[in-house]
């Protein structure tokens, strides 16, 4: 049994809300509130959730931009808070983050070459010529003309910029890629190109990937395992194909109902949402019990008071719901 490349144990990230003249703490935002999962070597795991569920903060915590309030993160079996400086540096090389907004994640005043060589410089490659070689090679790999390296981000189209972001993640030969909605901002006809491209890369370099998305349709092709996130917790987790045919959690079912689909259109079926009218959960005042109880049509007394624990309903298929 090999060590998973990434393991998260009961990860929590809370933000204190401060108000007043002396920045007194008024309340706490429970943005990520107890998440556990693992990613095996070479596996692609998808995390699906709508905006506000905490998925971006989760990614930022995994990459080290935020420090966890509680819980542990293991990279290749090593705990983050026990890593020495050298090991942290090594981890930074092996784990790369791809952002959603390509325009915002490239420095507007850096040429593409400058943006691409940053990771190399930061990891001690002082030979400029060697850096240039790697940059040209990587640009070719992502299907961009190496000439582009002299341009500025605003001179490139959205699709081209997204490839640059991916190239930047690849220059250091990573083992784990964290992708934060990498295709949402792209034109529809380009989404498939980039998705296919990511799948090709994964095969070629045996990459592991955590792919964050906001709907289940996007990850159908690429994900081997899918986790559904709502209000800071994971409500369902199952192998890829299983979730589409055997979803158990009411929220997952809602997501499936709202995903773009042609067959529903052909059958002239409307949406069958099964959602109580209301608003998304405010992380500063989460309801007691199951976080989905304000919108769940099956919610009962138990759901209003006790937070459900994960239950295994099928091999590798976990659900956090009292009604299952």
């Amino acid at each position, binding site marked *: 049994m090999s060590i998973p490349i990434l393991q998260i144990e009961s990860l929590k990230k809370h933000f204190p809300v401060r108000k007043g003249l002396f920045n007194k703490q008024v309340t706490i935002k429970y943005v990520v509130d107890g998440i556990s999962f693992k990613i095996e070597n070479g596996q692609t795991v998808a995390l699906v959730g*709508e*905006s*506000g569920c905490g998925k971006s903060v989760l990614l930022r915590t995994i990459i080290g931009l935020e420090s966890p309030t509680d819980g542990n993160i293991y990279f290749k079996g090593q705990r983050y808070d026990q890593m020495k400086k050298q090991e942290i540096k090594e981890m930074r090389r092996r784990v790369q983050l791809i952002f959603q907004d390509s325009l915002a994640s490239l420095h507007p005043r850096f040429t593409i070459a400058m943006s691409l060589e940053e990771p190399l410089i930061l990891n001690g490659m002082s030979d400029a010529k060697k850096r240039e070689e790697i940059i040209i090679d990587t640009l070719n790999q992502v299907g961009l003309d190496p000439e582009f390296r002299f341009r500025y981000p605003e001179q490139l*189209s959205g*699709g*081209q910029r997204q490839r640059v972001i991916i190239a930047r993640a690849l220059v250091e030969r990573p083992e784990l890629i964290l992708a934060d909605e990498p295709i949402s901002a792209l*034109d*529809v*006809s*380009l*989404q*498939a*190109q980039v*998705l*296919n491209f990511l*799948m090709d890369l994964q095969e070629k370099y045996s990459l592991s990937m955590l792919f964050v998305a*906001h*709907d*289940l*349709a*996007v*990850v*159908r*092709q690429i994900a081997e395992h899918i986790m559904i996130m709502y209000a800071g917790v994971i409500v369902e987790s199952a192998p890829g194909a299983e979730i*589409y045919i055997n979803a158990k959690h009411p929220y997952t079912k*809602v*997501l*499936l*109902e*709202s*995903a*773009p*689909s*042609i*067959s*529903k*259109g*052909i059958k*002239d079926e*409307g*949406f069958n*949402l099964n*959602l109580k*009218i209301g*608003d*998304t959960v405010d992380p500063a005042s989460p309801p007691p019990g199951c976080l989905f109880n304000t919108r769940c049509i099956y919610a009962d007394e138990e759901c209003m008071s006790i937070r459900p624990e994960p239950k295994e309903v099928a091999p590798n298929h976990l659900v956090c719901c009292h009604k299952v």
Partner: protein
Amino acid sequence: MKQNADIKKPKDVQPDVLLEVKNLKTYFYLPSGAVVKAVDGVNFTLKRGSVLGIIGESGSGKSVTSRSIMRIVDEPGKIEDGEIIFKGQDLLKIPEKKMSRLRGSQISLIFQDPTTSFNPYMTIGAQLTEAYLVHKNASKEEIRQRCIEVLKLVGVSNHEEIMKKYPCEFSAGFRQRIFIAMSMIFNPDLLIADEPTTSLGITIQAEIIEALIDVKEKTGNSVIIITHDFGVVSQFSDDIFVMYAGRCVESSPKKQLLLYPRHPYTVGLIRSVPLLEARKTKRLKSIPGFPPDMVNLPKGCAFAPRCEFAQQKCLEDQPSLSEVEEGRMVACHYPLMDYCTSDDTTLE
């Protein structure tokens, strides 16, 4: 002078065709001298009570089309040619004064961004009232009643509470819902929704589409929904109009288009768009290349550079729309007459 824009009763007796767009051309004259033919000869007909879904990506001209119909095209754009016949009148020939009386009362437009559509300093009630008074004078009570009615129309029952609040107190999805209500105050015959759900979360999107379907059912209005999202069009349209580089490439009733698309671009989209349906192969069949450069359109068919079926004729001659089957128009020299969506997808 405020014209008396009467609130029409739904399903009054009227002729069948509501809107006819003929050969619409809207061009943008850039300061550098280049001309962008954002809309280059668009034709369609919209019947009463039906929904037309216009689908296209950035640069396709879909938004400019809707703005042309409303005659709110900004400089440096100009409506060059064409006829927009709405209830028998050519909108391009009537004076601006008359057009402004139509806007909001007979034709309403819903935008993408619900954040900027509302005045942050006025309560919902005040804004709904304003929207009413723009077109018609009425007593406070009449206006209030109408506001309650339109809020009910979009599924909002606690109207008292809602009207007292400010836009910032609601989520983006809810604001969009209220905006739909506001646009329905005078029961317009035509509602144009320009990417109404693009910036919203997936479940909110579904809720908004449901609200639009509901409104249509209750009032019998016609809708033009403009989007890049195939899922949205699949669920909410009777006919689909596919645009690419300023022109229509395919126009067809929804079911036929979804099951048997004919234009290579439409086929490409259906094959490549991440949809819920499982594919028969792991890789999506993507459309190669990049979206067209509107300043430098190629000679011949604008899609030819990316089309795997393109032949010599496609590079030289721009194809025009022709009826390939009953009720189905395609602009292609070699439409794919044998393609079936289930070739690539497991439709249930």
